[in-house]
């Protein structure tokens, strides 16, 4: 009787413990809440160029807000607070607002607006280049003597591939930001932080092209970093294949990661990016 009771208690306890162990974990990854996100329609390249300013702005956002509020009270009626909110001003601007009482008009947050605009405009030549590519494919008469730099346009010769660009891949391909940890370090990598990293590595990555089946070769690389953004050890190729094409592709991926260091990533989020996996997949470059 007593034995049966003990067994029953033991089993119930086991079920209870299992429930405690498993349910909190599964509840750690709830389906994303349908929160309303403000969306600015800017190109990926523009995001990339803005990332430095935005990151700093984030750090000083709280300070800046407080100063803004002070400034609002003293500022002239010209101030337009609605504009302040939407513009994630680059770091230098909130610093200017440190003496709001003296020059209230300058602290009027409308001023930061032109700055970011300039910054956004700078990267425009890049998207333009991209947009120019399809023209090359159609207007072949205009083709000039070979220019190695124009190789980048090669794959757009596939008529049905449609214009693709490193700066603007299909939106569905955008990976979701990394999940934050449940241990209090509730951090995530933002789209533009990931995008900046991706763009930087893309610029260093010279994949071997034109080989038979080269578009199907994927290289999975483990990258481990120090807090200063430099590699803490040589990148490790995580997958294997016997072909010389794969060897060349793997070498190219390792070269890219080594050549691109150090990486500018948010120091606060070191736990997220200290050890990551990079999937080098050239399919999109081949119009796949």
């Amino acid at each position, binding site marked *: 009787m007593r034995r049966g009771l003990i067994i029953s208690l033991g089993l119930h306890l086991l079920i209870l*413990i299992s429930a405690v162990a498993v349910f909190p974990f599964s509840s750690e990854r709830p389906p994303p809440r349908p929160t309303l996100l403000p969306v600015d329609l800017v190109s990926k390249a523009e995001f990339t160029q803005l990332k430095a300013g935005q990151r700093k702005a984030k750090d000083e956002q709280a300070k800046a807000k407080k100063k803004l509020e002070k400034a609002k009270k003293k500022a002239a009626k010209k101030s337009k607070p609605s504009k302040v909110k939407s513009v994630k001003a680059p770091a230098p601007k909130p610093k200017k607002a440190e003496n709001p009482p003296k020059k209230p008009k300058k602290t009027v947050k409308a001023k930061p607006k032109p700055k970011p605009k300039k910054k956004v405009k700078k990267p425009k030549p890049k998207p333009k280049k991209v947009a120019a590519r399809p023209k090359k494919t159609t207007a072949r008469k205009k083709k000039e003597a070979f220019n190695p730099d124009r190789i980048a346009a090669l794959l757009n010769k596939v008529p049905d591939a449609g214009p693709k660009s490193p700066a603007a891949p299909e939106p569905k391909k955008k990976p979701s930001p990394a999940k934050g940890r449940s241990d209090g370090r509730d951090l995530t990598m933002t789209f533009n932080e990931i995008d900046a990293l*991706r763009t930087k590595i893309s610029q260093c990555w010279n994949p071997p092209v034109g080989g038979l089946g080269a578009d199907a070769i994927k290289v999975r690389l483990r990258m481990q970093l120090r807090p200063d953004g430099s590699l803490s050890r040589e990148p490790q190729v995580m997958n294997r294949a016997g072909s010389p094409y794969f060897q060349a592709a793997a*070498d190219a991926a390792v*070269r890219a990661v080594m050549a691109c260091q150090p990486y500018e990533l948010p120091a606060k989020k070191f736990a997220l990016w200290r050890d990551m996996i990079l999937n080098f997949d050239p399919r999109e470059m081949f119009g796949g």
Partner: protein
Amino acid sequence: MMNSSENKSLARIWRGVILALTMAVASFWAQTGAHAQMEVDITQGSLKPLPVAIPVFGGASLNDQKLGADIAGVVVADLERSGLFKLVDRAAYIERIGNLSQAPRFSDWRTINAQALVVGRVTREASGRLRAEFRLWDIFAGKQLAGQQFFTQGRNWRRVGHLIADAVYERLTGEKGYFDTRIVYVDETGPKNARVKRLAIMDQDGRNLRMLTRGGALVLTPRFSPTSQEITYLSYEDGRPRVYLLNIETGQKEIVGAFPNMSFAPRFSPDGKNIIMSLQQGGNANIFMMDLQSRRTFRLTNTPAIDTAPSFSPDGRRIVFESDRSGKQQLYVMNSDGSGQKRISQGEGIYSTPVWSPRGDLIAFTKKRGPNFLIGVVKPDGSGERVLTEGFHNEGPTWAPNGRVLMFFRESPGEGGGPNLYTIDLTGYNERAVTTPSFGSDPAWSPLIN
């Protein structure tokens, strides 16, 4: 006694509970830790040429050093012409390479943004034999990727350069090189209405040119055998078109047969044992295969149309050819026994001279569209047609053995105009003129020499 056994079983149960608890906690931590690693997809890369540093190759004597510079020059020219590599300006080099067996100072080469480094040394041995060695270094990974020694007669120094370029190309791109190859083409001299046409052979970079025929008779459409030693061509030596088989090394020539109204020379099968050709009978032309040993011919097509310009797939199982059976010239693919004939070209225009790529993935062709002739490629199933180059008159594509580059000839307009040779890679952007002393047409690219 009873009590002690109950206690024991109680202890066992508790141990089981604790074990289960430990396992549950361990699994919980393992799962939470496992998904902490971030993954980033890199789907776009730079397609700029890879920056490579190639210092002049060293040598013990002044003569060796000069030869070293010449060989390095061949390597540089080959790699740059491929469009995939760009030489880092030699004036920027910091380290002077002395000992080949020592690793270079990678930091010096990183500073000047070189991604790969090719170093070499040339030594002329007492016997007069040339020894050339090279090493290919990955600057950012800090490791040697390739290293080889070549021994040869001094006069073959250009070939040594091509072999080194092939080794570098293969290691960095993963595909076979094509620099140690030759081109046979028709050399054309004299005025437009009285051209003297001779068969010529040269290295793929236009060097080491020599004539194979004297120009007494019209020669057309040379084709390389897969063995690289023999070519077939069409010649009108006594006014009648005959197909000849010429051994390049020995100069030995034999007649395959006399074929009236033949306009293209035959092509070899991949094993070199058969040739395929089109023979005109009345107003029609059909495709035949001939066994080179028995000289027996087999008919492959039988249509009241002009079927011509056949070319084998590299596995020998299929044949691409052109036919006007639909009203205008289009491309067709059939099995090597003539069965399963299927049209693959669907675009507007007139298609001709199809050639199957040595790697099997594409078929190159000439196409007349409006006033222009273009060179294009299409997949064997007819999909993915692409134009590589277009102009006044482009014709006669021939594949490099790695299936990545095509050579063709382009006729320039006007009284003083004539055909010249060009190469273009599959990107369509890396187009280069091939320098020949006079006009050149009908190129045929050899397989790799060794």
